[in-house]
């Protein structure tokens, strides 16, 4: 365990720790671009310069291993000057198109220039022209002029995704990132290159030009795209959700996430969801508030009912909803809808797993706890025999990963009454010619608190990010209202009279304050103050 002194602070580090790792671990500021904790050391940006006592030359912190008694310092004038010029070298051929660059606002170059920059550019020569708006693959767009050639993306495809698509071509200041001949950047993890790009050279085709990043807020949650349960951050504002990025979690996903998981935000956006509950009367659609509809159909839920669940709900929801159903109807009528169970143990070697449900383990735990051991064939048998009057289906949110969705839908429509609980809008359901179909929109997973248990049994709790549709219900609320046993689940205020009114109240009390407006107000105050100065 060598001991060293960094900027006057004595610390003890593990054998083999580099200076930059030690500085990061001890919250010391140091400029860097090419170094990324999840990738190998390239040492090409030459920004993480430090002065080591006894060494006349400045050393780079990312490739210098700490030895006993090392005295390191990156606040001296010499280092500051080196970093200033290092940044200036980065900028001399960097185009000034921050206004149209998607990275502006979260750009490494902007941030570090504010902190370490020279503020006195002396470059007066014409800049090097390179290719702009190059399609590297279906999801990633390259702007070579903005690229500072830190080689993070190249190292990512070489070391993490092992797909070897990217390379640096040509040399000197004519160097450019590009794909090797005949290849496109289309691996399953390609958008990670966009995340690690410290400038706006690589941008996501999906997010490109849709929002400026300073209009977005973010919050951490867990990806519901597969049973790995990556730690993610969703970016949203009052207009909806815009993108998903991975958050470092050493136990689950490291620094990365897959491209498919980045699409999950779409399911939560308004345009992909039913705003109201609905059912058909004489071919006409009648819309009703979800809570009202749930209570209206209380009478349909009899002992002849069955409940179909998927592993797409939180442990808490499943526990309460199935618990209530079992209490009222019985354990033999709860069924697990498994999508492609034969692929469940598939694994692509990096993150993505065959089981595309985030909480299959959680569901199985609930089944075990409530001693439910039904089989899918029993449901089909019962449906064919007409033993099921009312079928409640808690349909999945990530429908794209349910290739058997249509097929299963036709099986379910054999039931006399079909109560459909789902958070996303599906055309297949709307087009169902079923006479007695009741559709209750549910909350999306970003709108509720809960716990997912991943493939390895790791329990991960997450908090609601925001509320998109206020009147939608969680699975347990919906079941509770349908079964008439929702009391005790949700606090009810006194100003209500009658059950319907109570149900309305529970939704009302849940409405959060409009945070977006508050923040906008704050932002404007800031602008005003700045205007005054």
């Amino acid at each position, binding site marked *: 365990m060598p001991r060293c002194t960094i900027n006057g602070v004595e610390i003890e580090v593990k054998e083999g720790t580099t200076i930059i790792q030690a500085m990061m671990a001890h919250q010391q500021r140091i400029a860097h671009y090419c170094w990324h904790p999840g990738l190998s*050391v*390239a*040492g*090409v*940006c*030459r*920004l993480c*310069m430090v002065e080591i006592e006894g060494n006349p*030359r*400045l050393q780079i912190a990312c*490739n210098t291993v700490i030895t006993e008694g090392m005295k390191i310092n990156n606040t001296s004038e010499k280092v500051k*000057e*080196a970093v200033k*010029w*290092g940044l200036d*070298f*980065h900028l*001399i*051929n960097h185009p000034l198109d921050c206004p149209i660059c998607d990275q502006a606002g979260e750009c490494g170059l902007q941030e570090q220039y504010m902190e370490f920059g020279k503020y006195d550019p*002396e*470059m*007066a*020569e*014409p800049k*090097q022209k390179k290719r702009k708006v190059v399609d590297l693959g279906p999801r990633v767009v390259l702007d070579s002029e903005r690229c*500072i*050639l830190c080689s993070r993306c190249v190292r990512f495809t070489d070391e993490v995704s092992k797909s070897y698509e990217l*390379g*640096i071509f*040509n*040399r*000197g*200041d*004519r*160097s450019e990132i590009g794909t090797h001949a005949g290849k496109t950047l289309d691996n399953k993890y390609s958008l990670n290159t966009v995340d690690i790009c410290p400038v706006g050279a690589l941008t996501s085709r999906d997010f490109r030009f849709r929002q400026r990043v300073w209009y977005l807020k973010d919050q951490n949650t867990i990806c519901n795209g597969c049973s790995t349960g990556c730690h993610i951050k969703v970016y949203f504002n009052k207009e909806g959700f815009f993108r998903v990025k991975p958050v470092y979690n050493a136990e689950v996903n490291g620094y990365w996430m897959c491209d498919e998981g980045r699409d999950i935000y779409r399911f939560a956006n308004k345009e992909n969801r039913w705003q109201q509950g609905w059912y058909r009367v004489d071919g006409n659609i009648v819309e009703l508030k979800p809570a009202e509809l749930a209570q209206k159909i209380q009478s349909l839920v009899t002992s002849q009912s069955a409940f179909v669940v998927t592993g797409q709900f939180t442990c808490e929801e499943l526990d309460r909803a199935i618990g209530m159903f079992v209490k009222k109807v019985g354990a033999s009528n709860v069924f697990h809808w498994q999508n492609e169970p034969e692929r469940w143990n598939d694994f692509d070697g990096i993150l993505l797993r065959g089981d595309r449900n985030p909480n299959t383990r959680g569901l199985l735990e609930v089944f075990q706890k409530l001693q439910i051991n039904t089989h899918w064939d029993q449901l089909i048998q019962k449906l064919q025999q007409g033993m099921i009057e009312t079928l409640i289906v808690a349909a999945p949110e990530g429908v794209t990963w349910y290739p058997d969705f249509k097929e299963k839908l036709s099986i379910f429509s054999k039931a006399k009454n079909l109560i459909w609980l789902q958070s996303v809008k599906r055309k297949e359901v709307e087009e169902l010619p079923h006479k007695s179909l009741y559709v209750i929109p549910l909350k999306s997973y970003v709108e509720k608190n809960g716990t997912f248990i991943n493939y390895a049994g790791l329990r991960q709790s997450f908090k609601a990010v925001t509320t998109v549709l206020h009147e939608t219900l969680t699975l347990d609320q919906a079941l509770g209202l349908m079964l008439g046993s929702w009391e005790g689940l949700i606090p009810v205020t006194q100003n209500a009279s009658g059950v319907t009114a109570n149900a309305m109240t529970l939704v009302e009390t849940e409405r959060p304050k409009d945070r977006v407006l508050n923040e906008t107000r704050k932002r404007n105050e800031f602008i005003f103050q700045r205007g005054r100065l």
Partner: protein
Amino acid sequence: MKETKVLTEHYDKEEYRFLEGYQKWGGYSMLRKALKMKPGDIVEMVKASGLRGRGGAGFPTGVKWGFLPKNGEPRYLLCNADEGEPGTFKDRLIMERAPHQLIEGMLIAAYAIESHKSYIYVRGEYNYPIRVLEKALEEAYQAGLLGRNILGSGFHHDMDIYRGAGAYICGEETGLISSLEGYKGQPKLKPPFPAVQGYLKKPTIVNNVETLAAVVIILRDGPEGYRKYGTEKSPGTKIFSLSGNVLRPGNYEVPLGFPLKDLIFGLGGGIPNGHQLKAVIPGGSSAPVLTAEEAMRATLDYECLANMGTMLGSGAVIVLDDRQCMVDCLGNLMHFYHHESCGQCTPCREGTGWLDKITQRILSGQGQPADVDLLFKVADNMKGRTICALSDAAALPVMSFVTKFRDEFDYYVHNGKSKVKGKVLAHAQMYH
């Protein structure tokens, strides 16, 4: 005034290029002698001789060989024949005139470091030397001097020629290794050093052609015999490539410590047409320039030149007389480094381009008074900030040119034309 021909003693003989002729003049007897010695003894012998790398950095060869870890991993010997430094043409002479001397030196070195595979990385443009080397290798294999069980000693060694693709940076040790591995020719981060983790991540020794050829001489004369020439810290003889405004340019072998004045005015025959000496670049284009007055005092050894703020480098002495415009010369150099920067480290990638653009702008008559200081500042901040020494190689000439010939630069930016030639020398496009 005469050359001291030790290494190049028989280079004037046509037959020396072939195995038969080489053996006639005592060739491969040193290999026989070496194969009877212990490898460690040879390393000690080279250490004692004080032989310093002839490629440019001047690192003691024996010490370098001693860095190899003793972990039983396969080791590689690479011969750096990627002679790219502008002004240098000494390795070419050795490869053309005495390929077997190089092969013998490499075999001795390989035996000393217990390597069983070596490569000669030759500059791609050296068509003729490559053909000569190929022929020599063929001869050596046929004579049992290469391959399995060399001369019945039980030592086996294979040698190959690898032809570079013409990048200056591949003459840098780790860049050469990258190129040889099949990657883009870019220097690698140190540590780990090649002696620990080099070619294919195995311990590797990279030596210059002249260094390896000199090993034969050390074995023949012994450390003391080798130290007969040269100075205490820079022993032995060295081939200097004299070029520029001299009467008789060419390769001259002289002992280290030889006065620069004698090389230029004695062996080189002086400056033609009665012109005056203006400046000398003593060690290839990346060495800082010497003024005429400094050049008169300088001796050709590592210490004296280092004290004068320049370096011996690869021994390429470029002589400039008073007809040369220093701004023009710098423009030429900057264009070269801009073109040859590998583009890995930011200060070098962007800095060489920046320096090139500034000098070309000055040359075209569009210079600003602040440009001269800016040149110095940019160069100063490129120096010592990168993985390899290319950015230093680009920065040092700039800094020395600007400091020592400031008047010419100032004249150019103020008057928009060359002080020496009296006209605008905008020729930047010519090179593109």
